[in-house]
């Protein structure tokens, strides 16, 4: 088992799993709601998706702030020595890409919603500002990007999970336990 100094903090672990659940749930909700034809249910789900998206954005900001103020543990030396250079690069690039998309996906959704003339009103009570103008051409241009970025995020999540499973099941190096609660 990794020593305490090699672990993520309990806060980092909690934020990781909370956002993991949120991102998987939001991806599924996004796929489901866009498959529906217009109905009050669809309208409701779209609004819930927007509210949850704002929460994901907020939690991601909190998570990034935590990461910047609480240095994550280095990869254990024994593991790094066994990793070819491309794997070390992939490890860093995947994490950088994930963090970039934690912000890009919800921000693009927010921008599209604003441009289309549907400002976000959090929980139906708190109007959020529009940071792009209401413009139909802009809305049409932005619309596919929210989806494309979400698919890119999903692809990186799959890669991230495969990497973690390889360490757990193939390398059997216990790396996964750094991201779980424990002593």
């Amino acid at each position, binding site marked *: 088992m990794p020593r305490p100094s090699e672990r993520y903090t309990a806060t980092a672990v909690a934020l990781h799993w909370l956002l993991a659940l949120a991102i998987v749930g939001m991806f599924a909700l996004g796929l489901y709601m866009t498959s529906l034809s*217009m109905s*009050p249910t669809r*309208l*409701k789900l779209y*609004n819930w998706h927007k509210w949850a998206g704002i929460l994901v954005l907020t939690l991601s900001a909190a998570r990034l702030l935590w990461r910047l103020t609480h240095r994550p543990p280095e990869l254990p030396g024994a593991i790094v020595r066994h990793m070819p250079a491309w794997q070390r690069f992939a490890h860093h690039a995947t994490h950088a890409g994930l963090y970039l998309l934690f912000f890009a996906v919800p921000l693009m959704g927010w921008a599209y919603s604003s441009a289309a*003339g*549907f400002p976000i*009103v959090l929980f*139906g009570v708190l109007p959020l500002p529009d940071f792009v103008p209401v413009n139909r051409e802009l*809305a049409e241009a932005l619309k596919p990007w929210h989806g494309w970025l979400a698919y890119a995020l999903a692809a990186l999540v799959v890669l991230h999970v495969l990497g973690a499973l390889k360490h757990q099941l193939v390398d059997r190096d216990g790396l996964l336990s750094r991201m779980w609660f424990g002593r």
Partner: protein
Amino acid sequence: MIKTLTGAVLAAGLLMAAPAFAQQKLVPAQSEIAFTSRQLGVPVDGRFKRFDAQVAFDPKKPETAKIGFTVELGSATLGSAEVEAELVKPEWFNTPKFPQATFTSRSVKALGGGKFEVAGQLSIKGNARDVVVPVALTQAGGTTTATGQFTLQRLAFKIGDGEWADTSMVANDVQVRFKLALTGVPAL
């Protein structure tokens, strides 16, 4: 020559005899009819691209005024193309059956300071309701601009029927705002 002259005199006589409002015309490019509906607390703005007015109005004799309106419901913009495709359906405007909304004034009351109160009947989707609309007039360079706003209850006109009648999803109140530029209105 004599015929032409007679014709001209007759025409002039007719023009003079005709009431002053005969030439009141809407200037569509400077006019606007917009509305705001709320979906789960989200204000969504729309507007009508095509509408016309038939106005016979002398600010000094408001009691003789006749104001009529037709709005092409199929010309509404509202958020996305997806929503607009929904708007023409039977649950909403049902434009194939009811292409136009109409307003016919019944009485106009002067409130002073260029302000008037127009009462009349608004008919949408085969449902007629009495409405009272406050209107403010300003005049500049031969153009009279009438602005005002009022709130209508969409369910009174069965706009958003069936599963959409739930006002927790789409609010019953719809704010309507208008700015109408007219030429030929006598001075205030």
